[in-house]
């Protein structure tokens, strides 16, 4: 684990409880809403800012854009099967070959782009944060996930469940204004079907796409030297 990743994890883990405290003291009434929004925003802003600051090859940027468009486009191609979205698989694959920052950007921007087409709402920051982090952590684990396909699929399934949990959380807090455990459980149980389909779709797409897309991405990373390298801090 590099210094940067340690720092970013610490930042992440410290600030969120801090805002929780803020929520508890100042925004008593709507503490959950505020806290969740702040958590989402904090899970987005530092990553994007750090991405901007670092040196990036133009080709990489355009490739990320292509992966973002393909992730959203894939959703439209497979729309007949509800819940079958290749976006998570694509985000993970990008992260495996281009590194955690690229993975983060692919995930969060795919969420943003998708919402430009399907409608924005208070769920946007949550989707951006969720998919971004999915990409980020996949990137951190890239060495192990690239070689080990079952592990990769397991990651996809777990991440699919976590995504559902996070979105359900947003849903509960958004609807109620506060976090009611019973209702959260009820919503989670009700959406169990969807969650299962989603986890399965992640695994299916990872299985189907990993090799061919992996081949293409590998060729491009080798050709243009875009593999995640240990820190070139400016």
């Amino acid at each position, binding site marked *: 684990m590099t210094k940067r990743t340690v720092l970013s994890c610490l930042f992440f883990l410290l600030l969120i409880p801090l805002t929780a405290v803020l929520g508890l003291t100042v*925004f008593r*009434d*709507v503490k959950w*809403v*505020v806290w969740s*929004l702040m958590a989402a925003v904090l899970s987005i802003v530092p990553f*994007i800012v750090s*991405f*901007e600051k670092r040196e*990036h090859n*133009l*080709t990489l*940027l*355009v*490739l*990320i*854009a*292509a992966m*973002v*468009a*393909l992730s*959203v*486009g*894939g959703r*439209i*191609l*497979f729309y*007949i*099967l509800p819940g*079958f979205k*290749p976006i998570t698989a694509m985000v993970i694959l990008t992260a495996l070959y281009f590194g955690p920052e690229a993975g983060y*950007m692919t995930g969060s*921007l795919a969420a*943003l*782009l998708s*919402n*430009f*087409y399907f*409608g*924005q*709402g*208070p769920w946007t920051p949550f989707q951006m944060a969720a998919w971004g982090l999915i990409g980020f952590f996949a990137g951190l684990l890239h060495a192990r996930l690239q070689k080990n396909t079952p592990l990769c699929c397991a990651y996809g399934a777990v991440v699919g469940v976590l995504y559902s949990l996070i979105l359900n959380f947003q849903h509960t807090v*958004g*609807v*109620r*204004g506060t976090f*009611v455990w*019973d*209702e959260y459980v*009820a919503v989670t149980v009700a959406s169990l079907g969807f969650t299962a389909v989603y986890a399965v779709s992640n695994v299916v797409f990872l299985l*189907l*796409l990993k090799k*061919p*897309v992996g081949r*293409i*991405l590998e060729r*491009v990373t080798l050709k*243009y030297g875009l593999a995640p390298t240990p820190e070139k801090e400016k």
Partner: protein
Amino acid sequence: MKSLHPLLSFPYFVAVLALTMLIRNPVATLGSLLGAFCYWLMTTNGKEKRADLGFYIPLAVLITVANPVFSHNGRTPLFFLNDNAFTLESLLYGAFNAALIVSVLLWSKAYSKTVTSDKFLYLFSGILPKTALILSVALRYLPMLRKEARRLKDAQKTVGLYSKGSVTDNFLSSCKIYYALIGRTLENAVGTAESMRARGWGKAKRVPCARYRFHTPDKVLAPVLLFLFVVVAVGAGTGSLTFSFYPAPTDPLPNGFSAFAVAAFWLLSFFPALYETEVNLQWRLLQSKISASATPQRTKTR
């Protein structure tokens, strides 16, 4: 609203959305709902209206009724279900929640329509150039992908794909098309990057094209809206807008400042509807002037 400078419209919507979600006062929330609703009435066509209502109304009913089922606080029970009280206060809270959620959805819709991708990019390309670049290239690719996918589908149907009609066959056929699409797009991406480099990317700092100008009305509106926002925020912060449904509904205007805060929130919420009305009126006025000057003056000859 579409002609407003994005520096005005973007923060406006974010602010109204945030306030709507955070303020839990039925009188205030009603204002937000009505304001969003009026704007929705003005900016959607018949087909969309029917589709939207078909979604919003059942949703609202569901939320209203679901609340008393889960939450049994409140002083006035209406009837009992399995030893659990179905209370009036709970039902009212459900209705309130429904109103709140529908307003959030309506505001989100209004935001999506007004702050389109180019306005969004315009705002952020200055501070987040790389992110904005990725988004703008992705936005370029997306319709292209849909067209390409259709072309590939057509061509492949004539050589045997999608020929079995089963769900699995359709899915696998779509997957094959998806792979091909990915391969082509990534190759294309490299070419696009070359083209951009050829046009000068990376050499000097980028100066975004000033597409939006601040017109005089914007300059007046901005401080007014800001003022309204501050009033509401202060009201919320100082407890002028606190309200509670349980065990029984409290006074929605707890202190002297409350009325101001609520009024400010109503005004803020009705801003888009008022703006649209004003624009429409101005346009009608202009039109009548144009047609009046175009019709030749008939002099009375005798």
